[in-house]
């Protein structure tokens, strides 16, 4: 198990390095001068002196490999550079906002699994029945509502019409745990509408497939109670595809909470990214993209470990 984990970790670290290099190259090799792009507004050519000044400041005048070494060296020390807008260290801002995004994504994942998994199993066991058809229709609808529509309508109903909660925002956990949780639940629940439907669908399909397998019939032939069969011989075997899909979605949520954070004023990493994109703050965009990609790789590493926990064949393979 340990050797397996070490092997996977090495591969993951290699991937992070590749991603970091790729992000660096994309920014530096695409046609167009970042400094010029940054300073040009509304099609008016920027002042050449200002461009030259900015190039100097960003180190764009140095050879590419020097810039690369400097950037990588900085990254190794956790230095993501300074924001172009306010010269604030990017690493600090990321360290502040990242936990909030992770909390949001994690909560959404937990909520989705909490209702998607059992409902998926239930629907599969009653495949073709009324309950199954009702749940499947619901999942089809839930998957079709864009997340910002769910969010906006949630704000409209819960905050505007019913006045149950404020329309969004963020309160640190330490200051007011109850309010923190209430404010977390709205965006997390919003994400969970679609994600839960995904979990439901994958679970249902996987369980249906496992139910057809020989070992389920063999367990029936031993006289094992249906409850035990479902728990030990069906759901467990169906978990692998569910883990895959949930991880994939959580991964794309790392950068995809943009809309929900925007709707609910959740000061996470995504909002920071949108601001950076709007301001064309290259160092910021690079840093955020890099962190999210690294997290994505880390998530895949954790998923590989999880596979090994679920399936002994992976451990030994």
């Amino acid at each position: 198990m340990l050797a397996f984990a070490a092997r996977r970790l090495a591969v993951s670290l290699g991937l992070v390095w590749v991603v970091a290099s790729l992000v660096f190259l994309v920014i530096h090799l695409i046609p167009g001068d970042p400094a010029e792009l940054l300073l040009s507004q509304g099609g008016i050519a920027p002042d050449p002196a200002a461009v030259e000044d900015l190039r100097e400041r960003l180190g764009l005048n140095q050879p590419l490999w020097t810039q690369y070494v400097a950037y990588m060296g900085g990254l190794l020390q956790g230095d993501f550079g300074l924001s172009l807008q306010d010269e604030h260290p990017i690493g600090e801002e990321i360290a502040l906002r990242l936990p909030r995004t992770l909390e949001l994504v994690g909560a959404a994942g937990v909520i989705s699994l909490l209702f998607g998994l059992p409902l998926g199993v239930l629907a599969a066991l009653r495949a073709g029945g009324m309950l199954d058809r009702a749940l499947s229709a619901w999942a089809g609808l839930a998957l079709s509502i864009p997340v910002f529509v769910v969010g906006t309508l949630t704000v409209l109903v819960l905050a505007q019409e019913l006045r149950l909660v404020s329309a969004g925002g963020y309160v640190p956990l330490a200051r007011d745990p109850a309010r923190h949780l209430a404010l977390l639940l709205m965006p997390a629940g919003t994400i969970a509408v679609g994600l839960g439907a995904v979990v439901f669908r994958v679970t249902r399909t996987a369980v249906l497939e496992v139910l057809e397998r020989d070992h389920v019939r063999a367990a029936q032939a031993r006289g094992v109670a249906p409850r035990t069969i479902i728990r030990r011989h069906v759901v467990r075997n169906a978990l692998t595809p569910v883990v895959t899909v949930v991880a994939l979605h959580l991964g794309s949520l790392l950068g995809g909470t943009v809309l929900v954070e925007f709707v609910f004023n959740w000061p996470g990493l995504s909002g920071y990214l949108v601001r950076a994109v709007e301001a064309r703050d290259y160092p910021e965009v690079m840093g955020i993209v890099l962190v999210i990609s690294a997290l994505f790789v880390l998530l895949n590493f954790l998923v590989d470990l999880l596979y090994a926990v679920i399936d002994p064949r992976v451990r030994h393979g």
Partner: protein
Amino acid sequence: MRRISLRSLALPGALVAAIVLLAIAAPLLPLPDPVRQDVANRLARPSLMHWLGQDEYGRDVLSRIVWGARVSLSVAFAAALMAAAVGTLAGILGGYFRGMVELVTVRVAEVVLCFPPLLLALLVVTLMGPGAGTLVFSLAILFAPGFARVAYAETLSARALDYVTAQEALGARTGRILFRTLLPNIAPPLIVQFSLTVASAMVLESGLSFLGLGVVPPSPSWGLMIRGARASMEQAPLLLFWPCLALTGTVLVLNLFCDRLRDVLDPRGKAAGRPGFLRRLVALPPAAARPASVTPGLLAMEGLTLEVPSPAGPVQVVRDVSFQLAPGETLAIVGESGSGKTLTGLAVMGLLPAAVRPTAGRILFTGRDGQVVDLLRLPEPEMRRLRGRDLAMIFQDPSSSLNPLVRIGTQVAESLRAHGTTRGTRERVVALLRQVGLPDPERAADAYPHEVSGGQRQRVMIAAAIANHPRLLLADEPTTALDVTVQAQILALLAELKRAEGAMGMVFITHNLAVVNKIADRVLVMYAGEVVEEGPVAEIFAAPRHPYTRALIASMPEGDAERLTAIPGAVPQPWAMPVGCRFAPRCDAAAEACHATAPVLEDVSPGRRARCLRWKEMA
């Protein structure tokens, strides 16, 4: 099947067509200008002039919704078309040429898939600035890898097919092969991917526009309308509602269309479902009288008939099968694939697949307490108490019959725990594993199925089956999936167990007559769902009365046979049974009458039966 699916496509198809037509016809419709402002009437309620009211700049909401469909759909379609063209080309080239081409096309596409989609779109917007052009471009980058992957996988499987290799052999130009032969054949999944992409592109477009990074105002877009309406949510909540409804409705219709389209074009992925898993379908009403008057020995099957539904009505797959089994006796059921022998075995266990329904017959079984029950009519909870205790079964493939994720010891222990053992389970499991000849049973109990060999897995299955000293052991081709040397060991083990458990009856289902000779007392030969001959093993081998049995024996090589191949032809399909004798088309002794009259099962001599018009001549 296909026709039903096509009809199911009609409604979502019509709705998609209606939305697209509405978007195309927007300039022709008598709608107000969607960008003309009328600040005096901002947030006005619905009126005759403005059916859905006016927005925060006094613009007509209905007109903006219709025009918004035009913007959203054209961006989504343009992006999907671009992605489809680029992605499909990359996928086909990569799948057809492999090697370096594959590396620079498909593998690069997979790198793109590693990025969270919205993140990638934002990155492109950073580099190019917002606008409809950027939007189409970034969405195309996002979705092209999906096409590349589908096209690649399909090309890989299609390029090996005969019509492609034939074209290559004929010297057709590569371009012709790729786009005239290959492309049309891999089109269905790509069409499904296309419609999926249009739906996803709409969602992403509206999301980016909602953030203010997509379509640039004042162009009408549903995402922008929702963004705008948020500000005036308190005064005019309906303004928020209309674009939300339009967007969700369109995506829903598109998704529905995709699902149906996939069912029609690409039916492989359709899950069948198995509704009867928990509730055994007891198709027969309980018999009026308790069947205790008969003395069935251990097991007496009487006239078992099984049906499966088919497009042309129910079809009998097992017809009127009867046999008896005494305690301690071994009966072999022999037949080719499709003879109904496995279904007959599963019927005893009450584990028939959901589609198979018993329609007639009785399966009388004498339990431990001497009570006689009809297994076909026993309610599921009582049936479950018998399974694994009085009735046990070993299956054909030990590799798939053990759950790969659960330790061997746990699976064997299930047999014990399911029937009341709570203490000393571990010791019993180890003892059982030792009894079936597993080396190092302590360790084997903690091992996972993949850690032991195929033969050992079958030993584990046998250990679980005999855990509660069953009165009847059903073995369904227990050696077929194993190596020849291992087969002999497993047979020896079963023979040994029979000796140890004196009263245990066994039904041994096989297609291998050589095995029958070694293990069984009596043999039941099945053909096309019917019993064709039955009798003591020695007598049947010495003097078969049915041409089919005779042919089976003749096709038996000296050593162990893997398959019976020497009989010409194949078992007829259940829905195309011959009128007369079911074996007549393949029978070398068939006479005129054999094709016209179905023979009945006759007593040939004491303890022997045969279903042949000419059995007397067979002696």
